[in-house]
């Protein structure tokens, strides 16, 4: 089976399937393309054969009126509909699986700008330009935003792609299956050097990656390239530090305390990962999505006991700032308290933010 699949892959010029998502995508791909080829060749050939078989014999030759039987009509409508729906159902099933990142995924923030990719590994983690280091066989979630125009994050080897939109967050995820280096393309046209907006995913063995991460945190912390970019608000140091600056500048802390005391809004201490009860009695886990949503549309999900007084920050809060805020909130944790719901978090809980060295 895999030999056959590899042969097809070679014939169709598909890159090897290097993520967990690539395998179901390729299988459906083969099914769809083979049926398509058979159907189009049969149609073309049939028309061609009819050209010769039913050539006009004399100028006065008359032709019969051919009418479809009910059976014929059912076949004509039913067969394509059957195949199309089958593909739709299978494709949608795979897609829904892909659209929902696993809870234990490691988060990496991605910022796109003309014409480069920047990656940062949450609080205290390293930042990098163009090269994304990830562990093999562990899910990695990318939280992405753009500083200028729409870009699109595309890794052919993983069969994943997601637009990166300014002013909002999009996410995608993958689980690489084999260590190696894989090309990142920008696939949404973004200007002069769109075709050079490349990057690389470096997939490492799990232990090797852990070692790399520790090294990055220790040795390269001071000299790393920050993810702020050259045309954005300059900051040197960790993203958490920057998030704190944003919280001060935007006045978040006027309503949200950092010490556990409820004020006008819920406190930020230990907020991340907490299960909050909403006004209507339902509950929500304060994850990245909830936190960012609450900045953009604060009144959609009001925590019980609080008044809907927070204004929206959509348009006021640049996307990278929102990211930094989330990271800042995530870092606010009572020492010793494990508030993260999933025990499987594959990266270490964030250590208290250390003042980073300035360059």
């Amino acid at each position, binding site marked *: 089976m895999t030999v056959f699949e590899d042969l097809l892959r070679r014939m169709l*010029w*598909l*890159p090897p399937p290097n993520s967990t998502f690539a395998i179901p*995508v390729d299988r*459906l*791909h083969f099914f769809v393309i083979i049926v*398509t*080829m058979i*159907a*189009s060749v049969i149609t*073309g050939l*049939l*028309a*061609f054969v*009819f*050209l010769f078989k*039913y*050539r*006009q014999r004399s100028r006065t030759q*008359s*032709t*019969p*009126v*051919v*009418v*479809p*039987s009910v059976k014929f009509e059912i076949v*004509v*409508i039913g067969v*394509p509909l059957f195949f199309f729906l089958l*593909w*739709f159902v299978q*494709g*949608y099933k795979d*897609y829904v699986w*892909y*659209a929902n990142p696993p809870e234990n995924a490691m988060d990496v923030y991605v910022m796109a700008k003309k014409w480069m990719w920047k990656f940062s590994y949450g609080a205290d983690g390293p930042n990098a330009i163009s090269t994304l280091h990830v562990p093999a066989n562990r899910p990695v979630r990318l939280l992405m935003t753009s500083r*200028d*125009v*729409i870009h*699109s994050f595309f890794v052919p080897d993983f*069969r*994943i*792609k*997601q*637009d990166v*939109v*300014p*002013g*909002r967050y999009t996410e995608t995820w993958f689980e690489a299956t084999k260590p190696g280096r894989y*090309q990142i393309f920008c*696939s*949404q*046209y*973004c*200007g*002069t050097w*769109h*075709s050079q907006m490349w990057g690389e995913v470096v997939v490492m063995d799990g232990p090797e990656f852990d070692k790399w991460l520790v090294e990055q945190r220790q040795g390269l912390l001071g000299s790393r390239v920050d993810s702020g970019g050259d045309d954005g608000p300059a900051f040197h140091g960790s993203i958490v530090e920057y998030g704190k600056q944003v919280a001060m500048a935007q006045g978040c802390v006027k309503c949200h305390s950092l010490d556990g005391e409820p004020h006008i809004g819920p406190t930020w201490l230990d907020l991340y990962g907490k299960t909050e009860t909403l006004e209507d009695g339902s509950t929500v886990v304060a994850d990245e999505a909830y936190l960012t949503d609450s900045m953009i549309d604060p009144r959609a999900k009001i925590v019980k006991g609080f008044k809907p007084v927070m204004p929206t920050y959509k*348009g006021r809060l640049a996307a990278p700032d929102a990211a930094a805020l989330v990271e800042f909130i995530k870092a606010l944790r009572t020492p010793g308290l494990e508030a993260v719901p999933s025990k499987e978090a594959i990266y270490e809980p964030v250590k208290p933010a250390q003042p980073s060295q300035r360059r």
Partner: protein
Amino acid sequence: MSQSNQLSQASDDKPVYPAVNYLNADRGVWSWLTTVDHKRIAIMYLVSVLIAFLLGGIFALALRVELLTPGPTIMGANTYNRMFTLHGVVMIFLFMIPAIPGVFGNFCLPLMLGAKDVAFPKLNLLSLYLYWTGATIALGGMIMGGTDTGWTFYAPYSTTTPMTVFPLLLGVFILGFSSILTGLNFIVTIHTLRAPGMGWMRLQLFVWAIYATSIIQVLATPVIGLTVMLVGIEKVGHFGFFDPARGGDPVLMQHMFWFYSHPAVYIMVLPGFGVISDVIAAFARKNVFGYKAVAYSSLGIAFVGFFAWGHHMFVSGQSPVDDGAFAAISMLVGVFTAIKVFNWVATLYRGAVVVGAPLVYICGFLFFTVFGGMTGIAVATVSLDVHWHDTYFVIAHFHFIMVGAVIMAFLAGLHYWFPKMFGRMYHEGWAMVSACLIVLGFMATFIPQFLMGNAGLPRRYYIYPEKYQSLNVASTAGASLLAFGFIIIAIYLIYALARGEIAGANPWRSEGVEWMTTSPPDKHNFHETPVITRDPHSYQQPGEEVEHVVI
């Protein structure tokens, strides 16, 4: 009765070229520029869209040459970006959208209805002038520095690029007006100017296709007009409508854009389907199999096409529920198209097929439509689209439908109606040669692009990794074959205009109503208003015992 009597007379006599016809009834450039005759307007459209096609084709060839090597080849990155924008805008707005409705719709629709003209002849001329104005402004923008946004004009790139975008947007806006007025005119014409005896079920299938197309033109085009104006205002006046920095939503722009531009692909392809239905009946000398199904499926595509736009946005961040709904609806378009394809093939079955160049195009068309259509279903399959979106796979799919289906249909129609328009025949041998060249050249151009997409090469790439070079070279080689085929067509058709054999009223012995008058027709189309007494595409002799076959 009158239908076949007139026909048999016309086909038995020695071919005559009517001394006075619409081409020479009035003379001088001014008589052309001020004409309200739908046939003359059609000829002016023909010349205009062919110039646009030539321009767009030159841009395409330049792009293909640039892509021969992975690095810079003959132009800079910005020139390349302007070039693909122009290729897209010129081909879509100046060629594909007006081509078949503007040329064959204008020429044949009133003839097929047995009418003297379209309902609003002056409005028809205004459409043409708007087309010229829009084209001039859009191409004028090229001289003023050019636009590098791609034909999709996605914000916020289009609103922040340093290049000139406004003239192109204004041009597209005006072209939209032209398209709306043409569609409006055709709908009213079909409703009000049918000859006596011509009920809705006696319309030729080309008329049905134009009717469905016109509905889309009227209902979808205002939205693109508004969208491009909003983008233009944003670019010039910074109103913030699509600008995330001011709270606007760039994804809203994509929704509004595709609300038009998805139906717009049916504006381009449905008239082509109509041409195929008519030509296949004339060359198989047989009733179109499943007339009603073909007619209604055009309307079905037009209707369903309005609700499928979101399948262009699977990776834009829209919710998975939307993705699922748009994907499911897209499948229905596939079913309607499949019905048409089955019916065309079944029309050839037990026909009395006359082999000619138009039929070669039809064979190519059938293969390309099935392959292009089903790869369309493939890219509407959400999980697969994640990989294919914005790669050459989508480009190849789109060109299979737009070139493989529509241009084959356009060429089939051009050869089929050439004698109707000009009263002369083209050279059959050269026509066959170039038809084969074009079908083969087309496959050589675009099949490698499917593979490039599979391999992951994104579209609109000026520089690409070396591993894609072999496929790019193959594609460029195919494109030159394609260009060669078009040059041959241009030569023999221009020759035929002057020296071609006299065709006579009905060289194909077609049963279409448009052939019931002289070729080229009289200024007022018919000497006597035709009376329709039988179903369209009926190839039985009057009084003949009709054999009914059920399959």
